[in-house]
């Protein structure tokens, strides 16, 4: 029972990271209807920036928030310079751009910081919380930070005018323009926020998976799984999907003998395929009621 509770909790901890990645993916998907598979590499690069800032002597939390700000600006700049010009371009052009971004961030990180594995600090400590062995301090911190982040985002989208404008731009760009929403800038803002959310995910998971240019590969696939489970167009669904994937991954890795630690990633991929085959709108994607 103790082991079970432990696996659930650490599943929720990594699930929070997947939830963040899933949310970042969905935010961009809603705006431009393409899956940004460079999202993980962007998060990895952000994490290297944080590592560099800490190396230069910045205190952890200063580096943390500075990295978020830098990532936000970076996301906006990428949208304005790369994806805005591609606005009406065919799918293939977008895919090429995503591959290019992926390759650029991956090799640039390797070039600047080399490919050796680095350890990344945790502000929470690695000891187990209250010495119970149930959950580590870092896992607890991860859950708290992701919940705070997701809560703030919820409030932002529900209760601010700019959040409302962003939702309008994503769901109905033509009507949004007709009420004066600057749709192009809302998309850029979405990119900035997605990049910032990814940065948080990267910085939180780096102490667990260690810092290196390929650190986000698997995380991104879990994030995709969460987004697909959530239906790709539902931010709330993506978050729940991300947490669910984290828990399922952990329990399967522990209790299903054939799965083990090595086969965990296969579960995420199988989940993506299964959901797309049997419930393509995801478990939360078809909640919207419309009447014409």
């Amino acid at each position: 029972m103790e082991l079970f509770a432990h696996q659930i909790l650490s599943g929720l901890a990594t699930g929070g990271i997947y939830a963040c990645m899933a949310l970042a993916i969905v935010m961009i998907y809603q705006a431009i209807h393409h899956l940004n598979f460079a999202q993980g590499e962007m998060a990895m690069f952000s994490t290297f920036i944080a590592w560099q800032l800490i190396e230069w002597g910045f205190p952890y939390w200063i580096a943390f928030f500075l990295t978020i700000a830098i990532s936000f600006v970076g996301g906006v700049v990428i949208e304005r310079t790369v994806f805005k010009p591609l606005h009406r371009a065919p799918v293939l052009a977008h895919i090429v751009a995503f591959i290019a971004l992926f390759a650029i961030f991956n090799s640039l990180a390797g070039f600047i910081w080399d490919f050796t594995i680095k350890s990344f600090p945790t502000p929470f400590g690695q000891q187990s919380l209250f010495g119970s062995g149930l959950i580590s301090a870092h896992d607890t911190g991860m859950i708290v930070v992701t919940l705070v982040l997701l809560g703030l985002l919820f409030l932002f989208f529900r209760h601010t005018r700019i959040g409302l404008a962003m939702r309008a731009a994503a769901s109905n760009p033509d009507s949004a323009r007709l009420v004066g929403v600057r749709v192009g800038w809302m998309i850029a803002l979405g990119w900035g926020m997605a990049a910032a959310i990814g940065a948080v995910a990267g910085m939180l998971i780096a102490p667990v998976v260690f810092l290196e240019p390929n650190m986000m590969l698997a995380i991104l696939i879990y994030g995709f799984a969460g987004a697909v489970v959530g239906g790709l167009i539902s931010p709330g669904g993506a978050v729940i999907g991300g947490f669910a994937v984290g828990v399922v991954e952990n329990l399967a890795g522990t209790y299903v003998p054939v799965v083990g630690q090595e086969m965990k990633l296969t579960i995420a991929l199988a989940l993506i395929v299964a959901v797309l085959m049997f419930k393509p709108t995801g478990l939360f994607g078809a909640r919207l009621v419309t009447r014409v």
Partner: protein
Amino acid sequence: MTGPMTGTLLEVSGLEAWYGRIQALFGLDFTVADGGVTTLLGANGAGKTTTLRALCGMIRSAGTARLGGTDLTGRATEDIVRLGVAHVPQGRGTFTAMTVEENLQLGAMTRRDMRAIAEDIERAYAYFPRLAERRRQQAGTLSGGEQQMLAISRAMMLKPRLMLLDEPSFGLAPLIVEELFSILSRLKAEENLSMLIVEQNAALALEIADEAYLIETGRMVMSGPARDIGQDENVRRAYLGY
């Protein structure tokens, strides 16, 4: 019906528009008086919707369209909206996943006067009590008539100088249409709202309008005071069912 004519609000001349390489409008001239209502009539595919889209910068156009002293052509939709042009589009443009109240909030997106916005939302509810009852309801679940009321209210939230309405009566039961047009008449009288109304229901449109224009395949074929157009033999036969 004639409103207080203090001058011309919108003056369109030589308006042309294209969908890709296909030209859809061939030099339209028309005006909307300040505080007045102009209607554009025409059969399916005549170019009525296209005219409104061209005015709002939603498609490529040429010619001039002066609102007050400002030329609208060549500007981005968002900027034209900021000049005070509210468009109630064909299909109503409802933000279906959002609540009624959020739709109204969106209509005021270009404004900063938060207190006045809250008052104007209440004013919209006073004009359309059915919306007040449904303020927390998802807008996609409203009936067609309610969505049209919402679209008009959303446009009013801009405090527009000019409102463009694309077939407000489309697909609605006669009773609802009557209610809708009586409210449009009230808006004209009480809020001094200037309107450009596109309609297939010519009888209805001619009743509220001061000026009327008839479009056929992207060209203006007739224009004049709404009363005279309503008396014209050809119009009566073709559009009024006599």
